């Protein structure tokens, strides 16, 4: 199988598995216990915190371990909203194509009386910093913009947006789930106040993640209980998972240059190959995108059938089609970049992993071409378009 769905989840690295297994077996003490055996687990936990902090240019005291990216997103937004509310600031700026962990939390805050502005992301899938600045008001409590989009892989001008937020004294959060471990992220250089990340997106285990909160930002608890995580996240820490996440992150960050050097040309080769398919279009900016992401729309076909046939050919990928989500609407990300429903249903996301080869790329290109052609062969939509009844959108 060619696993091309690394934006959904990644395989754990060997080093991460080793860290996890050794801690599950030998270091099962509770980090809150004062005897040496418990303190050994505490040491593993704090070593992990140092490694994670170092990977993003933070201080270990600024790292809070969570159950994943979604929890970190929820806690970041709710904390910032509470801080704003105290000062009478109830306006939040975000974008139309955030992950649902952000959008649904914003919806909840809206119901609690917050005003939310969702900025457009334009055809290239990139937020414009000047539009962020223009949207900032007296009562803006928070700006939250994802670092890289999970579906189309576009990288946002985080540093510029962060600088604007600093200038106006507004908190800035970024959902960096698709960026951390894939491209260089540094909270200091990027002017980030709050950042969310997820372990299983960079070869760590599922159920792990972290929230970076710049020193001085008071977090609101989502989970009440014991005094773990400096009293900000109760519950006995998932020490093996957290340590394995840290191992994976350290490894990924050390390997960033090699990762980009290997994946970028393969990504671009696949993009060039898929562009040869008539009436297709790449989704999102071609330059400012993570090295692993390829996302296309193919007119006249539907994404789920494309995925099932690719699966038969041994390629695991994903789509923004409504049929793959169980809802009637296609991906909100594709709609946000201006793709109409008709073509958004025919989308394909390939997210590559480090083990991809040049031969795999050739096979992917050929397979997608064959399947698209086959499905178009009995698509009434395609027949009408070819017959000149109606206009091609792509």
């Amino acid at each position, binding site marked *: 199988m060619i696993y091309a769905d690394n934006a959904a989840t990644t395989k754990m690295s060997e080093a991460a598995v080793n860290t996890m297994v050794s801690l599950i077996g030998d270091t099962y003490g509770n980090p809150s216990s004062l005897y040496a055996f418990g303190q050994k687990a505490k040491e593993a936990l704090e070593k992990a915190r140092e490694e994670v902090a170092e990977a993003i240019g933070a201080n270990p005291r600024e790292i809070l371990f969570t159950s994943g990216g979604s929890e970190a997103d929820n806690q970041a937004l709710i904390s910032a909203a509470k801080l704003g509310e105290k000062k009478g600031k109830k306006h939040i700026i975000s974008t139309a194509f955030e992950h649902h962990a952000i959008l649904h939390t914003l919806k909840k805050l809206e119901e609690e009386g917050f005003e939310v502005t969702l900025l457009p992301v334009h055809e290239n899938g990139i937020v414009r910093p000047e539009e962020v600045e223009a949207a900032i008001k007296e009562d803006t409590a928070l700006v939250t913009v994802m670092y890289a989009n999970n579906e189309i892989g576009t990288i946002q001008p985080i540093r510029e947006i962060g600088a604007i937020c600093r200038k106006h004294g507004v908190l800035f959060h970024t959902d960096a789930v698709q960026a951390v471990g894939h491209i260089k992220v540094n909270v200091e250089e990027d002017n980030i106040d709050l950042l969310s990340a997820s372990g299983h997106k960079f070869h760590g285990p599922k159920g792990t993640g972290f929230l970076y909160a710049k020193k001085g930002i008071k977090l609101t608890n989502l989970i009440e209980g014991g005094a773990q995580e400096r009293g900000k996240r109760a519950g006995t820490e998932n020490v093996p998972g957290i340590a394995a996440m840290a191992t994976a992150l350290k490894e990924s960050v050390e390997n960033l240059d090699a990762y980009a050097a290997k994946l970028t040309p393969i990504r671009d080769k696949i993009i060039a190959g898929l562009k040869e398919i008539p009436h297709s279009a790449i989704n999102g900016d071609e330059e400012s995108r993570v090295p692993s992401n390829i996302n296309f729309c193919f007119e*006249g*076909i*539907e*994404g*789920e*059938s494309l995925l*099932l*046939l690719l699966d*038969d050919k041994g390629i695991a990928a994903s789509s923004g*089609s*409504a*049929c*793959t989500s*169980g809802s*009637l609407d*296609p991906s909100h990300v594709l709609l946000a970049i201006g793709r*109409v*429903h*008709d073509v958004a*249903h025919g989308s394909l996301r390939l997210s590559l992993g480090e083990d991809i080869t040049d031969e795999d790329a050739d096979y992917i290109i050929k397979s997608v071409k064959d399947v698209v052609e086959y499905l178009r062969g*009995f*698509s*009434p*939509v*395609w*027949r009408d378009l070819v017959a000149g009844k109606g206009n091609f959108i792509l």
Partner: protein
Amino acid sequence: MALYSEKVMDHFRNPRNVGVLENANGIGEVGNAKCGDIMKMYLKIENDIIEDVKFETFGCGSAIASSSMATELIKGKPLEEAKKLTNKAVAEALDGLPDYKMHCSVLAQEAIEAAIDDYNSRK
């Protein structure tokens, strides 16, 4: 657990009666591209018998499988019988569809109804 039954996957991978029927005397198209499903049924009806049937579908795996199964269920059957084909019968013949995919079988039933209506309107 697999997303679909073996039968759905079989009809999806090897759709029966797929394509265009040049001498069709009843054609029905239902659904819309906005929702991600369009089915087109071509019927050749002679002496109140469905002599031949073909389909074209833009849609997901279960939409393609539902169209394929529906054509099998009506091919060679009297028109009166074809009229009575229900979406439930299509779904059952496929060993079931996930709840949120039942509308695909509804579309198959409606496509056949639309094609029969078209045939009747031409008489």
